[in-house]
């Protein structure tokens, strides 16, 4: 890719020499507009990253870096000023977010396939952590092998080839029937339903749900033309949509944390998670929604209208909170029931992506329902809503 980029730049500079009439300044401005150069040298990349996406990516990376510096400065403060536990938590989160964003940006810059593969590895690792956390029996061994080395890669291959009709049912239909059958064939019937359900759930959350995030890249969407009130082909980049989704989940996580600390009074379920409060849930959902409206108004990276973006962010935030509550419940259950069998310090990736996993399929399907080029019913709903809002 680098090679082709260099080639393109050489081509550009050659053009300067070949066209003596055009002044250099013109070309400098065209160089600044490098998505267009990308469009010349590598059409796929240009489709993946448009101007607005690049601006959003830069803003996110810069603000995360600033947060990182703030965190490091706070770490040096005397302990009486700030609670060191909160600072440690904050720093850990910022570093993991920065890692996620940086990896994602690099993957998106390289190729769509690289992004899909990246998510595939994350899924694999998360599933590995999940199965480590849940007890399985000797009889599950071969099933687990097929789940980790068969269904997990296959799901991402299907996403990579954009086979929507298969990847959306492969795990819920084929894998979820295969798992109990394969275990039954081994002849170990002890706690059969429990074991089956655990493996199915792990596969569903860690692989199936998360695979909907890179699947966003495949979507062929329409967008509302504000002047005509009609739906038309969306020309933006789906990478922007994916990045928007990830950023919204992170903002929601961060706001949840902040709201819990500052205004949290009513704990949702102390037995599951003692820090998550109703104030945090509602507050983060509303604030994320406002943030999404602002982002969409300034940097139109998604095909949504401004109110559409707000609604989607509300949905993302509620799902993200549900995801982390669910994962807390699973961990709590394991720790209470089988203290000592849990391998410590081994749920790092799962901890970070639990909210992503829950939000991804909902975000994918709602977007697809309303804005997919072939979904007539969803499109008519969007147009009706737009007309109603327009008449008000």
């Amino acid at each position, binding site marked *: 890719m680098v090679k082709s980029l260099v080639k393109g730049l050489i081509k550009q500079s050659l053009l300067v020499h070949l066209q003596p009439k055009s002044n250099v300044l013109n070309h400098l401005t065209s160089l600044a507009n490098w998505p267009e150069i990308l469009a010349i040298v590598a059409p796929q990349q240009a489709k993946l990253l448009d101007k607005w996406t690049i601006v959003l990516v830069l803003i996110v990376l810069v603000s995360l870096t600033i947060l990182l510096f703030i965190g490091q400065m706070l770490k040096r403060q005397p302990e009486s000023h700030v609670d060191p536990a909160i600072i440690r938590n904050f720093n850990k989160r910022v570093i993991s977010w920065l890692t996620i964003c940086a990896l994602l940006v690099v993957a998106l810059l390289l190729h769509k396939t690289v992004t899909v593969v990246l998510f595939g590895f994350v899924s694999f690792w998360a599933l*590995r952590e999940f199965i480590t956390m849940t007890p*399985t029996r000797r009889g599950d061994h*071969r099933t687990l092998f097929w789940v980790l080395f068969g269904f997990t890669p296959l799901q991402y291959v299907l996403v990579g080839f954009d086979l929507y009709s298969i990847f959306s049912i492969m795990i819920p239909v084929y894998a979820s029937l295969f798992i109990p059958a394969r275990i039954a064939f081994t002849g170990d019937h002890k706690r059969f339903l429990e074991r089956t359900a655990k493996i199915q759930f792990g596969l569903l959350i860690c692989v199936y749900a998360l695979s909907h995030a890179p699947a966003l890249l495949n979507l062929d969407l329409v967008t509302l033309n504000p002047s005509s009130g009609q739906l038309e082909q969306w020309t933006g980049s789906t990478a922007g949509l994916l990045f928007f989704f990830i950023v919204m989940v992170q903002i929601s996580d961060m706001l949840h944390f902040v709201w819990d600390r500052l205004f949290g009074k009513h704990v949702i379920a102390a037995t599951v998670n003692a820090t998550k409060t109703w104030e945090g849930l509602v507050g983060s959902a509303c604030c994320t929604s406002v943030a999404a409206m602002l982002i969409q108004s300034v940097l139109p990276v998604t095909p949504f209208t401004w109110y559409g973006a707000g609604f989607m962010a509300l949905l993302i935030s509620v799902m993200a909170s549900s995801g982390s509550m669910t994962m807390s419940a699973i961990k709590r259950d394991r720790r209470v029931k089988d203290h000592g069998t849990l391998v*410590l310090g081994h749920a790092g990736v799962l901890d970070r992506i639990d909210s992503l996993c829950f939000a991804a399929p909902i975000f994918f399907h709602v977007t697809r329902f309303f804005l997919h080029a072939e979904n007539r019913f969803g499109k008519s709903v969007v147009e009706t809503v737009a007309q109603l809002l327009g008449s008000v």
Partner: protein
Amino acid sequence: MKQITVPVLAAIAKALSGATVRWVDCEPDTCQRIYFANHTSHLDALVLWSSLPRNIRSLTRPVAAVDYWQGGPVRRYMASVFDLLMIDRKKIKVHNSPIDMMIREIGNTNSLIVFPEGGRNTTGEIGEFKSGLFHLAKKRPDLELMPVYIDNLNRVMPKGEFLPVPLLSCISIGAPIFLESGENKKEFLKKARESVMNLKETE
């Protein structure tokens, strides 16, 4: 050849087992040690060995059964790569006891990895220890006997399976034990077994 195979195999073992290593109340050291661990999987020796720091790894030899490791060219090659110390389980004689052989082989530099249960257990429980560890401690009281608890590796590759499921495992190495004066064989082996079991509980 060996210089390439060893790091590659160690890396594969680490990737497959995802092992975290905990040194509980002790530090890695190049002094002569006997690491004794519970035995649940084929991978035990390989993973424990590759989870040691490199300078210690080169001094440490796993003790293994000759009848298993002579079976087939791949196993024989692996045995030579890891510099396994072969013990013939079937031909244990008074004049050629495996303990004497171990002591002779390690000299004044090497450390050993042993599995005092004698074979792999399938239940996940730690079986009774065989007496070899006691005789080693009696003949070489200067050796540090390090208890090791290997967690979850039996799930990665249980007995009788040949395809690994790469779950995450954990290796805990505890503070050394020694043979106290006046301690008999039964008491010592019980103490050794408990030192391994205690590592299971510590978190």
